[in-house]
Structures are given as structure tokens and as C-alpha cells.
């Protein structure tokens, strides 16, 4: 039974997709202006430590391309990870702003800053912090992405502050809780198929390997995970991804040391009209 359940895992991360691909982290690109992307991520855990049973989290989200430099995402989570019953868990907003872009044919280097905020009604469990369901707080960071033909490399670092009422309680002090953390990741991706582009109907196959870490600034605790992933893109607009994430080493108290993610994302271009200059007629 456990081996069957082992196929079901929960993935605790922030899986958001931009035009470039990564499954477990963001890249520095912005989705096209006036476009909209809808996504649904399913995180699965084989054994939720607290309740000694499998758990899952559903993360619906919508992303808007506000301009060629700014995108905004709003989302929520429904889960039974921190509660006995399955219920609405959190809401979140995420904004990413492109700071810099250097482009050449088939390659670019981009840097973006991001700010994320989330509110959850889940109880404060574990040392590990995620803003999508697990904890309430804010996360401020920077992303750098280098794209060279079919290879993508990206690095992210961010500072997270958690806002739980226990943090501001002057009467009861909980020394085992951490409210300030650093997140970091290094991701690589490779476009395996097609070997050469001929038309938009070709299916894209991307492979990824990501290192994701978190370190508490108050307790001497941290973790480092490895997450291989596979992604298919159909008709240049529909993405389906799957990832398995597991702990390489760490000392943090966590719900699980391994999890699975399945994600579906659909993009819609030119959702609203742009302002263009009045056209001049030549005669």
C-alpha cells in the first residue's frame, strides 16, 4: 500500500511558469504584455507526518502580463496538508519586474526582482516555510537567467519574513520557531525536442534539474533539495509538467522529504487591446 501511495507526493514550493520553462522556480522573463496565463498545480505527499496519511494541495493561479516589464499573479491553495480536512487554505499575490535584459539571436541574459505575499489560515507547523499554503508572510528577491540556444540557467535568492501572531506575542515566546529565512535556487533546463523548429504544432520536450534550498536566519537549520522535472508543450501554448523533489541534506523539521508535482498551464495572448499611435495614411 505504501509503495502505491509513494506515487502520490506533495510538493511544497512555488511552481510558476513564465515563458521560459522552469518547473520549481521562476525565471527572469516576463510573460508577453496583455497576455494571461492560467495554471493548476497539484502537489502530492505520500506521507504527511502530522496525520500519517497522504496529503495533497491544489494551487490555481492566474498570471497577467501588465507590460513588457511587469507581471502579476494571484492565486490560492486548497489542501489537507496542515488540517485534518481538505479546505481552502491560503491566498497569495506575486509581482515580478524585469530590471535588465541583454539579447542576441537565440540567447539572452535577464535580471528581475520579485515580491510575493501570502496569507494562510493553516496552523504554524514545521520549520520549513512556503508562502503558498504553509505560512503567511512576504518574500523579496532577485532572479538572474541566462539562455543560450537550448540551455537555460537561472539563479534566485530571496529573503522571507513570516507574519504569524506567535511572532508578535509579548507574553509567550517560542524559541523553536523561525520567522526569517533565506531562499536560494539554481536551475538548469534543456530543450530536448524538437531538434529544429519547423512550425508551431511541434511538441516541445524540456528537461530540468533544480537545486532548491532554504536557511533559517534565527535557528541553525536548513535544507537542500534536488528536483528533476520533465515538461511537454503542445501547440506552443499548453504546458504539462511533472516533477519529483527530494531532500539531499538538511536539518529542518519538514512535513516530508520527498514530494511530487503535476502542473498544467495554458497561455492566452493579446487578451486586451494596446494603445497604438494614430496611423498615418500615405495618400
Amino acid at each position: 500500500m505504501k509503495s502505491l501511495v509513494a506515487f502520490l507526493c506533495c510538493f511544497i514550493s512555488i511552481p510558476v511558469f513564465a515563458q521560459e520553462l522552469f518547473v520549481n522556480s521562476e525565471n527572469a522573463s516576463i510573460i508577453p504584455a496583455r497576455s494571461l496565463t492560467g495554471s493548476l498545480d497539484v502537489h502530492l505527499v505520500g506521507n504527511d507526518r502530522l496525520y500519517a496519511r497522504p496529503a495533497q494541495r491544489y494551487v490555481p493561479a492566474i498570471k497577467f502580463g501588465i507590460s513588457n516589464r511587469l507581471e502579476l499573479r494571484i492565486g490560492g491553495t486548497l489542501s489537507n496538508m496542515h488540517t485534518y480536512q481538505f479546505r481552502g487554505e491560503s491566498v497569495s499575490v506575486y509581482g515580478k519586474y524585469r530590471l535588465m535584459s541583454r539579447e542576441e539571436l537565440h540567447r539572452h541574459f535577464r535580471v528581475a526582482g520579485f515580491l510575493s505575499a501570502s496569507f494562510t489560515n493553516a496552523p504554524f507547523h514545521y520549520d520549513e516555510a512556503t508562502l503558498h499554503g504553509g505560512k503567511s508572510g512576504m518574500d523579496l528577491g532577485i532572479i538572474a537567467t541566462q539562455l543560450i540556444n537550448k540551455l537555460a540557467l537561472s539563479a534566485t535568492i530571496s529573503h522571507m519574513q513570516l507574519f504569524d501572531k506567535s511572532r508578535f506575542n509579548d507574553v509567550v515566546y517560542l524559541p523553536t520557531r523561525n520567522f526569517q529565512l533565506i531562499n536560494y535556487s539554481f536551475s538548469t533546463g534543456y530543450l530536448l525536442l524538437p531538434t529544429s523548429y519547423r512550425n508551431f504544432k511541434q511538441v516541445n520536450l524540456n528537461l530540468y534539474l533544480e537545486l532548491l534550498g532554504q536557511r533559517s536566519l534565527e535557528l541553525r537549520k536548513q535544507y537542500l533539495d534536488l528536483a528533476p522535472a520533465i515538461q511537454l508543450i503542445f501547440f506552443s501554448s499548453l504546458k504539462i509538467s511533472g516533477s519529483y523533489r527530494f531532500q539531499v541534506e538538511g536539518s529542518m523539521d519538514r512535513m516530508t522529504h520527498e514530494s511530487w508535482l503535476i502542473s498544467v498551464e495554458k497561455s492566452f495572448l493579446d487578451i486586451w487591446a494596446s494603445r497604438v499611435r494614430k496611423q498615418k495614411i500615405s495618400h
Partner: protein
Amino acid sequence: MKKLVVLVLVCLSLQGNAQFEKARVQVNGVVCSLCTKAVMKALNKLNFVDQVTVDLKHQQYDLRLKHGVSPDLTDLRKAIEDAGFSIGQLQLFGDFGAGIKESDSSISLNGQTFYLQRSGNNGASSKAMTIVDKHFCSMKTYQQYQKWIEAVGSCEDCFHAII
């Protein structure tokens, strides 16, 4: 005398009707089909574009321009940048060569002014011009012509081109 009058009238009419027929844009930074689709959709929406075809391998977009509608190069640039990319090279093609004399340093076409620099090739075509203004070409190309552009000066609806 009659032949001379006819020749002058033909030349005048050629200049009056001279316009761009096609534009070729190379876009930088694109490596996936979703990205290419975003650029194509943005270019198809421009009201001076009749049809767009793309060379996916080289990220070259050929735009067939509508007759009688002035191509707005600023809107073309904005469309590509809104999709998240930038212009690597922009070439304009048209039968405007008859209106350009060897001594001309600029021409006016479709309400826009193009300051010209010859490429120095003996067989240079007078039917194609490459825009070298900032954001309309690669940074390397712009830096190559930057001094000339600054010396000539800039204005709205003015562009600098190599023929």
C-alpha cells in the same frame, strides 16, 4: 520634347508613389515556439501589416505591408518589445530607389524622414534600407553608427538607415 515631358512625369509619379512594400525583422532573445507565436501574433495585429511569415530557425519575420498605409516603425518596435523581445535587425524594402540621388543625405517617405548612409558597396541596392537607430538594431550595430546618428540629430518620425 514630348518624350522629355513624359520622362519627367514618370519620374515624378514614381517618387510620389514610392513606398515600402516589405519589412524584414530579426528578433533577438527567442528560443521557444511559444515565444515565436507571441511575436507573430503581435506583428499580425499591426494595422499596416498584411501578412507575416516566419523563418523559425533564424527568427526572421517577413512582413508584407499594406498598400496605402504608412508603416509605423515605433509601433513595430513596441509590438516586439511587448512580446518580451527586441529587434536584432530591421530592413525595409520598396521601390524607392528611383527617388534617391547620389548626393541625397535624406529622403522623406510616407511621412517619415530617413537619414541615409551608403554602405560603400558598389552594387548596393537602392531597394533595401537597414535601420540603425537604437532599439531598432543590435547594440553592436548601433554603436558602430552612433557618432553619425548623433551628428545628424534625431526627431520624432526620423530614422537613420544604411542603403
